[in-house]
């Protein structure tokens, strides 16, 4: 069933995927020639490519493709699985293409070893997982409205976080920066975990956590989509 659904995604979105990848490529060329940090570049590329998938869901909604697809002899969970696979495939393809550009483009400042660094790749995988875990279940369940709610919610959440941070900073007489402190605490916890485990074991644990997060998001999306009345 999966190849049939992937074929469907390809026929439905092939033109816009090509266009998006062309724009993404142009942006990457600009970024490669102007950015100084390989890690910052690949993280931005990952963020950009993760949000490219939102365009596909908006198109699904616009052309009401979900409705007629659910009339076909498929299980809804299979459609959700195809969406997750397509989303990850797009990120991997986009980052693969971006890395290829970094290798072949004359004038780039990043050695490939800096991009194919374990910690950089884990950061990219973690960020993508977080975005997908948030955006996919709600966009699959609520369509374009889900994406809008996610984006508006993220903005409001960010503003609230900054306001709370400022308030706490003022309350402490400017002695501390709570957001930075919280981020540092997360970072310290990860570093301590890495130091406590062997480097290999740490990587395995992180990968297991990321796979589990993706699996939970997938099951949650399937649960929500199963309840969607078309």
């Amino acid at each position, binding site marked *: 069933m999966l190849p*049939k659904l992937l*074929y*469907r995604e390809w*026929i*439905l979105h092939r*033109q816009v995927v090509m266009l998006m990848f062309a724009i993404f490529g142009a942006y990457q060329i600009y970024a490669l020639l102007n950015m100084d940090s390989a890690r910052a570049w690949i993280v931005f590329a990952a963020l950009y490519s993760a949000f490219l998938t939102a365009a596909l869901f908006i198109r699904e909604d616009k*052309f*009401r*493709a979900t*409705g*007629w697809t*659910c*009339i*076909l*002899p*498929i*299980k*809804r969970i299979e459609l959700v699985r195809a969406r997750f696979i397509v989303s990850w495939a797009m990120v991997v393809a986009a980052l693969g293409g971006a890395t290829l550009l970094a290798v072949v483009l004359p004038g780039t400042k990043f050695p490939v070893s800096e991009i194919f660094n374990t910690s950089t790749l884990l950061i990219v995988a973690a960020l993508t997982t977080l975005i997908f875990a948030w955006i996919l279940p709600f966009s699959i369940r609520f369509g374009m409205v889900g994406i809008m709610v996610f984006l508006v919610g993220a903005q409001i959440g960010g503003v609230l976080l900054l306001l709370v941070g400022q308030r706490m900073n003022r309350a402490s007489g400017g002695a501390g920066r709570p957001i930075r402190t919280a981020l540092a605490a997360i970072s310290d916890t990860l570093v301590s975990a890495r130091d406590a485990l062997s480097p290999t074991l740490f990587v395995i644990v992180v990968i297991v956590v990321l796979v589990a997060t993706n699996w939970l998001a997938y099951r949650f999306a399937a649960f929500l989509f199963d*309840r969607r*009345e*078309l």
Partner: protein
Amino acid sequence: MQPILSVKGLTKRFEGFTLSNVSFEIPPGFVMGLVGPNGAGKTTTLKSVLGLLRRDAGEVLVSGLDPEWDGAAARTRIGFVHDEPRFPRYLTLRDISAIISRFYAGWNKARFLRLMDTFELPLRKRFGVLSRGMRMKFALVLALSHDAQLIVMDEPTTGLDPVFRRELLDVLQGLLEGERASILFSTHITADLDRIADYVTLLQDGRVVFSEAKDDILERWALVKGARELATDQPEHWFRGIQVGPHGFEAITDDLPGVRRHFGDAVIIERPTLEDIVLLTSSGRTNA
């Protein structure tokens, strides 16, 4: 013989509307017309048959399979024609059929191409440039190309001009001759049912008024006309719907012997059309 479609006590609640205790069956090879005014619950019933809605009570079986729990297996046996086929406008008919054909093990490519040819539908054309009638024909070709046992059509003739509507019904009738497929056909145009339906289910406000063979309905129900004064004599006791005008009343009944006994020769009794039954039962009691 096991019915192709069996609906028993189907209930679905929405805010402001409830589809309540809907039951009917379609034997293999017959056409069931699902008729009723807008908002009667026809589309909700069809969506439940397709497994697109979660019902609150009752049972739906398509060839013995419940579409809510065995959705994929049940939908393999169903060909669906939407009231307004909703494929992406930018895809060609070849693209759409390439996607859809992959999902059906019983896809009959030769039949698909033959029907496309019969309907003069070019594979290279984009869906968006087709007229409404052509879109409907294309949806019908897709529904008929995978050996479906049940063709479900949601108001396929709504919005079509009369000539095209008649042509579509003729084509449908011709295509089904000698076929084992059954059809569930929702419409509010009763003339369509006069032409092709074997059974009729009338829905009003989410409830079944009747569900039986069309000939039995036309035999059992009667159109009653009489003087205005007679209409004041407990009409709801005799009639399922009545319209009272300045010169008399027109009513519909499914209790012809009772009406004959009560009114005798004071009223005129005529054989109704399906339209008479639908219009008068949906009017309840009205004064013109």
